[in-house]
């Protein structure tokens, strides 16, 4: 009986985490190149079989928010007319250099810094095949494969295995394990003067939020029912 209370409580806790993730997706509905986080609820088996009257074998378990992952589906692309905006069409990530090491991004709203380097909003240099990309004096012209006329070429890594990436905030991804960074790739399509929208699906997120809320409510009702039963057990039975 008491175990069931904890099971229901874990259900409430995991739905709370699920709402946190959904709220973050919704908050980032306007973030350039943002990829939504997915969250699913898993079960963990805690203790086997409270043996009943020989007939029933109950399996008690708790649930927790698990199997979260990044949904790397490309977002829709919108045209901005600003030549410093680079959108990746299809899979791939652009490599940028940060004080913490190399990071990866799809938030392709870049600027030229005072020294002529192509950088992110935060001032991190965009990396090419040989060192950081310098914007030519005549302006940035990049072809569909990420090459500049003067031979510089953007460097890309694969996003095919999202499990090897963790989000670092600031539109950046870090390798989940620094010793095994994502694989370098070359065949990445770049669209200049365009920007990738966030891939958050508002309708789906809203529906999931409803499910989360109602499932939270269901667990709450379960706890109340259990509490009532417990109360009856301790008061009414004792009265006999």
């Amino acid at each position, binding site marked *: 009986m008491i175990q069931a209370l904890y099971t229901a409580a874990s259900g409430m806790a995991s739905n709370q985490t699920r*709402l946190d993730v959904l709220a973050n997706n919704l908050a980032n509905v306007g973030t350039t190149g*943002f990829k939504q986080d997915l969250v699913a609820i898993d079960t963990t088996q805690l203790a086997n079989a409270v043996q009943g009257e020989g007939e029933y074998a109950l399996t008690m378990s708790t649930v927790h928010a698990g199997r979260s992952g990044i949904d790397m589906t490309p977002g829709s692309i919108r045209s901005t007319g600003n030549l410093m905006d680079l959108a990746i069409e299809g899979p791939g990530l652009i490599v940028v250099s940060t004080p913490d090491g190399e990071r990866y991004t799809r938030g392709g709203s870049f*600027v*030229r810094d005072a020294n002529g380097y192509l950088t992110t909003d935060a001032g991190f240099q965009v990396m090419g095949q040989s060192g950081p990309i310098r914007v030519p004096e005549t302006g940035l012209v990049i072809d569909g494969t990420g090459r500049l006329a003067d031979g510089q070429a953007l460097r890309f890594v694969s996003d095919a295995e*999202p499990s090897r990436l963790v989000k670092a*905030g600031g*539109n950046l991804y870090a390798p989940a394990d620094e010793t095994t960074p994502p694989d370098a790739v070359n065949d990445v399509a770049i669209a200049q003067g365009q920007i990738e929208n966030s891939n958050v699906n508002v309708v789906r997120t809203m529906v999931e939020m409803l499910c989360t*809320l109602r499932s939270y409510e269901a667990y*709450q009702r379960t706890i109340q029912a259990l*509490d009532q039963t417990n109360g009856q057990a301790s008061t009414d039975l004792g009265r006999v």
Partner: protein
Amino acid sequence: MIRALFTAATGMTAQQLNIDATANNLANVNTTGFKRTRVDFQDLLYQTPRQPGAPTAQGTDAPTGIQVGSGVRPASTQRIFSQGDFQQTDNPLDLVIEGDGFFQVLRPDGTTAYTRAGSFQKDANGRVVNPDGYPLQPEITIPQTAVSVSIGTDGSVNVTLAGSSTSQQVGTIDLARFANPAGLNAIGRNLYLPTAASGNAITGAPGSTNFGTLSQGFVEMSNVKVVEEMVNLIVGQRAYEAGSKAVQSADEMLQLANNLRR
């Protein structure tokens, strides 16, 4: 308390800024030489209760972990220096820069400010000044007896004096450009000041390498596209609404939790 409440609040604050920027763009749809701004957003830090690749209770490695984000923050309001449309005015001191470059004007405090708004006038002494009376740099004075002023695409200013059939040059307009114009600091009144991010001004004659050319009798209109801003407004408002729904959900969940104990 429930994290979703604060996460959703960051989303709402961000969209509010988005609407603020859009409203300013729309308010300046008729401002000469105005350049629209765009707000860029970034996701905030993540908490990682479980790393991908962490060992699970079953002795395997978790293929994916759990990362819970804490919302969004505005990364920058980026000014887009794309060319605005031209409006013909037939005023000889209305100038437009076709291409890269800024006019230089001298502020009363002695510093130089930069502008794309080329609607100049003459002051009482014949100096070419902007609508606020800041003289164009290098300073150009139109003689009181001039009957016509012509400004070439290369910035040369020629006047024809009364009673004369030939024109004479009274000065040249220079332009300034920046390595990173998006890093300029807008101070209002159509003026920009250089910053460490924009780099120092590089001056040059109109039409020389990397500089635009001048056209007389036109002004540059703002580069705000009303349709785009309207779409932005819709997106911003709906995203704000989505955030408010997340706040409501979080609130209802908190209420349910509080009602556990009757």
